[in-house]
């Protein structure tokens, strides 16, 4: 299955602006940063969570704790999605009890990744509240899951693939739509 790049739907500036706007939305909706944790879903949710935390720090003067969540062992599609599912690190800033956790991921698609993340979080403790922030919502939900904060809504067809590239991992910030050749 060869993929061909169709279009760049967000460039570096657009990604930056979206994250800045989302960070303001988060603080507005939660009425502050009290008890807020930003937990990134591996892999690309992690640098996104860290960026959101830094943005919040820039205007609130408070850096919310961030965490990393690996959901490989909770997925329901282990053998279908990858040939060799890989296990990464989970690191939380402490006991989630009473915290408001905003899960952060790059793309929201079927919702299965988020479902797995919720299972993982609940096994780790009992947060007071869990919300979801994603850079891209591409539709086609297979589960009743929705994002609280969205960078950009991108209607897609199932034949298309959305690829988020981030400076920390891919050496540049951009979002592209790819299609099977």
């Amino acid at each position, binding site marked *: 299955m060869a993929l061909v790049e169709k279009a760049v739907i967000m460039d570096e500036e657009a990604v930056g602006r979206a994250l800045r706007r989302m960070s303001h939305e988060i603080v507005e909706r939660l009425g502050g940063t009290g008890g807020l944790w930003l937990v990134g879903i591996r892999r690309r949710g992690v640098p996104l969570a860290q960026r959101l935390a830094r943005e919040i720090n820039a205007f609130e003067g408070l850096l919310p704790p961030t965490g990393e969540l690996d959901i490989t062992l909770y997925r329901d599609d*282990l*053998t279908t999605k990858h040939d060799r599912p*890989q296990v990464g690190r989970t690191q939380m800033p402490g006991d989630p009890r009473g915290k408001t956790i905003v899960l952060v991921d790059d793309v929201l698609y079927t919702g299965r990744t988020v479902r797995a993340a919720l299972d993982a979080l609940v096994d780790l403790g009992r947060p007071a509240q869990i919300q979801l922030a994603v850079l891209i919502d591409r539709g086609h939900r297979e589960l009743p899951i929705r994002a609280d904060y969205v960078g950009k809504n991108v209607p897609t067809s199932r034949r298309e693939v959305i690829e988020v590239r981030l400076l920390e991992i891919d050496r540049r910030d951009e979002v592209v739509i790819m299609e099977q050749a």
Partner: protein
Amino acid sequence: MAIGTHLCDLDDLDAEGIAAVLYTAESMAEILARPIPRVPALRGRTVMLLFYEASTRTRHSFELACKALGADSVSLAAATSAVAKGESLVDTVRTARALGADAVVLRHPASGAARLAAAQGLLPVINAGDGTHAHPTQALLDLFTVRRHRGGPAGLRLTIVGDILHSRVARSSAQAFARMGADVVLCGPATVLPPEAGAALGVRVCHDLNAALRGADVVMALRIQKERMDGGLLPSAAEYRAGWGLDAERLAAACPGALLLHPGPVNRGVEVTPDLLDRPESAVDDQVKAGVAVRMAVLYMLLEGGAAE
């Protein structure tokens, strides 16, 4: 190659594979430290634990590893099973498969038993110790323990002391540590440490305990088995202790703070004096803890074909 279908001995894992297991085991150790040490990764899978020999550590740590990954484990203790009626190993594995097992963990007194079971092509086989041949998961947990305490093991010196000839632990650990770049020295009475042992494993042999301990960063003491003394290979427990037993004074020859390992169960006062087990340098309890995490990694990688990032 991360990991293949079976884990029978260290030939089934190259350095990259070993590194992948150790890395995955780190994530597994984090899961075990949680308030709820459980993930659903192997939910719906059944692992048959076929133990033809007594075991505390290995069997229970495999059981706990299965449970932590959400898998079911079924234990077969040979003495109370149809094995007592004469059922063969191959038939037992076939029966395990018919009962719905997805993998077999096998401990058997005959060297090569794991390879035989694996060769039937019925189920993935993990060797939990076969005769005097191999104990790969023990070697992996030894590596994991050493790495956590000292890093490496590349560049570290490991000295293994004891009945090397009959030790599957010594064989597997010597291979594993050497493959990962450690300098390994085997030490023991000449009756149980033939000079060829070193060449076969690609490591050094030394019959002088003091010389072997000098410069060691990690010292592994092996259990002395009573059968060897009955068989005339070793004089007596007291004489072994006198010539080869480790105590604080002898260990002073090693590097300061050298790590102490023992696969267990420990014959207190024979291969090590009891006080050594209470010192901070003793990693024996950590080895046991590591065993669950490492066996989780092996089970997960074997059954899901996964490896760490």
